[in-house]
């Protein structure tokens, strides 16, 4: 069923009785050509592009809970392509371009809102680093603009510009950045994949990988054994657990990241802003809640909930940037399990086991990557060669000394 304005009007006049489910709930088949483990944004996008763009058939997405219950439904929804390094920036810019066409592509309102992102700087050294980053972005075809204090004041008059310790000196803006309705991304890709014949199997946890003579044969699941030509892991924070089923140890630690939303307010925050003297990012949802977050808690965790010191830290950073935030009440907070890699950058690659592929290590920045991750992973699955924007995301790059360390902090996942 195609969604359109006309359709909404027709349904409104006929009591909304014509809307069907957006995707099927099929029984698992005995085997598939492609089994994708994980019904998050990346898994569903991979299935969609594999079916639609690469014309592949007999594809299943296996999700242990319900689709969109993982990080894709827990993130702070920020999209941007303001990276510095060569291995990253072309990939994230490709992703941003895919976001720009996503709603037409999927015939689904994902509320892609290019309201702009502004990274503030508070010192001369930070300005120089941002200038360099902005130039790297422009060289890779992205947009970037350095704003001075007056320009920022015009748009965000309520920031604490004269903060004694961290006065705002300017900012790097990417006007094409913004936010996307996260759940709608999962649902839109699910609906698109389903309409191209992909089976989305929920409540179907992968509990074992059947490997014979160095090649994958299929997966054991909570809904029985499913044979597979190719198996593609795409489980974000659960990456180490799933790959352990094939005795593969990963350059990844799982950490908890918390997010927060205030009560609904009238429109105050026109774009996404980030504080440069701490780790704090904030935007306003279309319902009016201020959505914000900061650092990961910093210790290994699979708990999907964090601790109070991080809450305090995030709120302090928020208050240092937007004093008015103190008047808003916190409505909800939650956590998600991040697949923190050893250099802060992701992996999209095959493994040494024939037919077993791996996608993970997204840290807390994988939402913006969803379309490109899906496209590049589908490209790898369909052609066994990396997509041109994802050639650096190899699993063995640590052995070869080819880390992509944006922050330059080394093999310390909780610092990326």
């Amino acid at each position, binding site marked *: 069923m195609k969604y359109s304005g006309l359709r909404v009007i027709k349904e409104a006049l006929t009591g909304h009785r014509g809307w069907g489910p957006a995707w099927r709930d099929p029984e698992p088949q005995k085997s598939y050509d492609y089994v994708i483990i994980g019904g998050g944004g990346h898994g569903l996008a991979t299935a969609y592009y594999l079916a639609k763009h690469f014309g592949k058939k007999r594809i299943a997405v296996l999700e242990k809970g319900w689709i969109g219950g993982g990080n894709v439904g827990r993130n702070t929804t920020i999209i941007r392509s303001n990276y510095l390094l060569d291995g990253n920036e072309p990939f994230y810019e490709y992703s941003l371009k895919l976001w720009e066409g996503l709603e037409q592509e999927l015939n689904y309102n994902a509320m892609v809102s290019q309201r702009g992102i502004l990274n503030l700087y508070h010192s001369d050294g930070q300005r120089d680093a941002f200038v360099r980053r902005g130039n790297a972005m422009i060289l890779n075809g992205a947009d970037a603009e350095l704003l001075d204090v007056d320009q920022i004041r015009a748009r965000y008059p309520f920031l604490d510009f004269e903060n004694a310790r961290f006065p705002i000196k300017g900012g790097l803006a990417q006007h094409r950045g913004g936010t996307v309705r996260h759940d709608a991304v999962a649902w839109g890709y699910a609906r698109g994949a389903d309409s191209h014949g992909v089976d989305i199997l929920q409540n179907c946890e992968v509990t074992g990988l059947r490997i014979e003579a160095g090649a994958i044969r299929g997966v054991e699941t909570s809904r029985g054994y499913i044979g597979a030509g190719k198996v593609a892991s795409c489980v974000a924070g659960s990456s180490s*657990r799933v790959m352990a089923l094939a005795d593969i140890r990963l350059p990844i630690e*799982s950490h908890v990241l918390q997010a927060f939303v205030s009560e609904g307010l009238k429109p105050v925050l026109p774009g996404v802003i980030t504080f440069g003297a701490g780790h704090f990012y904030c935007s306003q949802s279309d319902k009016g809640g201020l959505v914000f977050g900061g650092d990961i808690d910093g210790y290994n965790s699979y708990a999907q909930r964090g601790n109070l010191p991080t809450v305090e830290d995030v709120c302090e950073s928020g208050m240092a940037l937007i004093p008015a935030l103190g008047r808003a009440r916190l409505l909800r907070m939650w956590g998600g399990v991040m697949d923190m890699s050893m250099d802060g950058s992701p992996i999209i690659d095959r493994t040494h086991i024939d037919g077993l592929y791996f996608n993970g290590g997204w840290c807390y920045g994988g939402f913006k990557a969803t379309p490109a991750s899906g496209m590049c992973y589908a490209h790898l699955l369909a052609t066994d060669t990396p997509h041109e924007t994802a050639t650096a995301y190899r699993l063995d790059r640590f052995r070869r000394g080819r880390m992509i360390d944006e922050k330059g902090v080394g093999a310390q996942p909780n610092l990326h």
Partner: protein
Amino acid sequence: MMIDHPLLGPRDAQEFTYLGDASLIDRPDWQAEDAVDQFHDYLYLRDNPAGEHRELWFHEVGDRSWLVVTRNTLTHQITSVELARDVARSRGRSK
């Protein structure tokens, strides 16, 4: 989280910084034939278990001792805390 420091008693986890898996105590022999492979695994690969995890915490704003904390990564419950020095010695690491 509260960490029951073997010398100081219960302290708030906020006083500590976190390094990671306690296997980092087992630094490979740099003269071994396969030292390159061993150091790769040591530096970059992790078991990253969901469940019991032995990990290194540094009492940065306290007595600056290193601790080996056994903690469940699913519940955050801490079941044992040892001085890293004792753990290292028991593994023949330091004199």
